[in-house]
């Protein structure tokens, strides 16, 4: 090919690449800007301290959803952390061929479960007998979270340098102590980062909650109480014709975004700090 033609192609691709990047970034900026601008309207103290109020007034706040999210995510973590952590631990430390392969495949399968199906499952198990509840929502979100926790735990433990394990081995330390203190200890920050990222992932999930928690205006007091959640209330209010609720939806979205952002950036920052030695 002639030199100039090759140069032109190179420049064309450069233009395309810039264009592609902009196509990706500009909508993102638009989303963030519109959330901020629309969300500031109701981003007030009332939003987080009040329960829904009269449609004839300002519409109240989303305290019920904030409490609901906290409770549902708590249950989800309660379910997914032990299951995910120990599964990841097992795969990284004690894996033995067929069972390990099977377990890993199953975790991959779980990772591919569409979130709405997790909700449907929780419905058939819990809602049918105990009704719409925090527990049902937590189970659904827990199912979604398990693969994240398991994979990040496994990866974190795999990153432990062999020398450290061998050093412990050669010192005659019992196996369980090596695993628990040395391996987990070394990978602790990465493991916790994995937990927090799983949390950040499920805190924004809506589909499974649609069929498990009912989404009323009460503040849940008990694990079997029906509840609402921040992403769910955004959905409900966005789909309504009431301007009052649209405003709250945007503000709730702003709140949720801030939470998710803080979690994600916080994890990144936390890892950075821990890695400096």
């Amino acid at each position, binding site marked *: 090919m002639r030199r100039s033609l090759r140069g032109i*192609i*190179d420049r064309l691709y450069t233009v395309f690449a*810039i264009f592609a990047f902009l196509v*990706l970034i500009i909508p*993102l900026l638009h989303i963030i800007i519109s959330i901020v601008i629309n969300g500031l309207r109701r981003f007030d103290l009332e939003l987080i301290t009040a329960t829904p109020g009269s449609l004839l007034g300002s519409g109240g706040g989303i305290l019920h959803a904030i409490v609901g999210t906290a409770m549902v995510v708590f249950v989800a973590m309660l379910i997914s952390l032990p*299951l995910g952590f120990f599964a990841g631990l097992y*795969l990284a430390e004690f894996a033995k061929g067929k069972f390990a392969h099977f377990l890993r495949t199953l975790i991959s399968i779980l990772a591919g479960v569409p979130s709405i199906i997790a909700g449907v499952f929780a419905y058939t198990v819990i809602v049918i007998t105990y009704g719409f509840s925090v527990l049902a929502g937590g189970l659904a979100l827990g199912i979604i979270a398990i693969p994240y926790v398991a994979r990040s735990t496994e990866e974190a433990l795999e990153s432990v340098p062999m020398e450290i394990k061998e050093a412990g081995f050669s010192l005659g330390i019992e196996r369980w102590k090596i695993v628990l203190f040395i391996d987990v200890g070394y990978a602790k920050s990465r493991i916790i980062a994995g937990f927090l990222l799983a949390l950040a992932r499920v805190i924004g999930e809506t589909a499974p909650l649609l069929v498990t928690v009912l989404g009323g205006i009460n503040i849940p007091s008990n694990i079997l109480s029906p509840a609402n959640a921040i992403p769910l209330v955004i959905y409900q209010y966005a789909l309504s014709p009431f301007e009052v609720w649209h405003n709250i939806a945007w503000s709730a979205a702003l709140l949720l975004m801030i939470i998710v952002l803080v979690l994600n950036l916080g994890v990144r920052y936390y890892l950075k700090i821990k890695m400096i030695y």
Partner: protein
Amino acid sequence: MSRNIWNLEESPLKRLVKLDPIEGVSLFFSVLLVVLTLLFIGKMIIYSLPVFEKFGAGFLVGTDWIPRKDIFGALPFIWGTFITSSIAILLAVIISYGAAYFIVEIAPPKVREFLSSVVELIVAIPSVIIGLWGIFYVVPAVRGLLKPMLSPLSFIPIFSGETSGYSYLSAIIVLTLMITPISTSFIKNALENVPIELKEAAYALGATRYEVFRVVSKPLIRRAALAGIILAYGRAVGETMAVVMVIGNIPNISISLFNPGYTLAAVIANEFLEATSVLHISALIALGVILFAWSLIVNILAILVLRRVSMR
């Protein structure tokens, strides 16, 4: 892949007896997880059986969905999921390569990390928020901007017809936005890991930046890129909220992207709570099983393909 330095040739039974507490606890939870997952899958399959009993394989190609009359056919939803996720992943791949190339090759090295963080940020945005943005901005844009812009092309079937804005196109737009960052970050990471010596050698031979990318980098990143694309595709197939808020939720099968449509995940989310009969619930769960199987098949294909794609 186990870095197991403890057991060398012990039989499983012997190992079971020699279990130490940590291994025991881990094993317990792992088995528990396996049991629960199998029960999950089993339960879903059992619940979906009634509708297959009634319609047989015809359920998969049935075009009518009339819950009131207990008539169920999955095709409109399979079509919707297929069309939206296929076009979305196509666009995502094209954009991803370009954007990753930009971040790694064009942008100044100092801003590279910042830019990739920004791109990964999109992945973290909950889908309901993207749906919220979609209702108030994308839908009106499709109706007021894109439709008029594309009207000269309306002789092409996929651009024909009128639109309310709630359409396959709106769903494709939000899906593309949601999944592109996933494949972009995989490709970008892989590009960064291409050994600098290889690239320098190519430059030394007089290659342009693009030629280095095409000839040296692309083949090397094939594996990682494919992994990222598969992941992105899986996300597109299973995405519920953003799609349900902008697609119009009408179970029809149409070629025009401007028409409203429906996807597997969307119909389950909308109709599950109001399912009025055993058959209706079974049909919805069957759609879920189809959805589940879809991502499973894609993952299996990915593993098969990845095995063939050479690494180095």
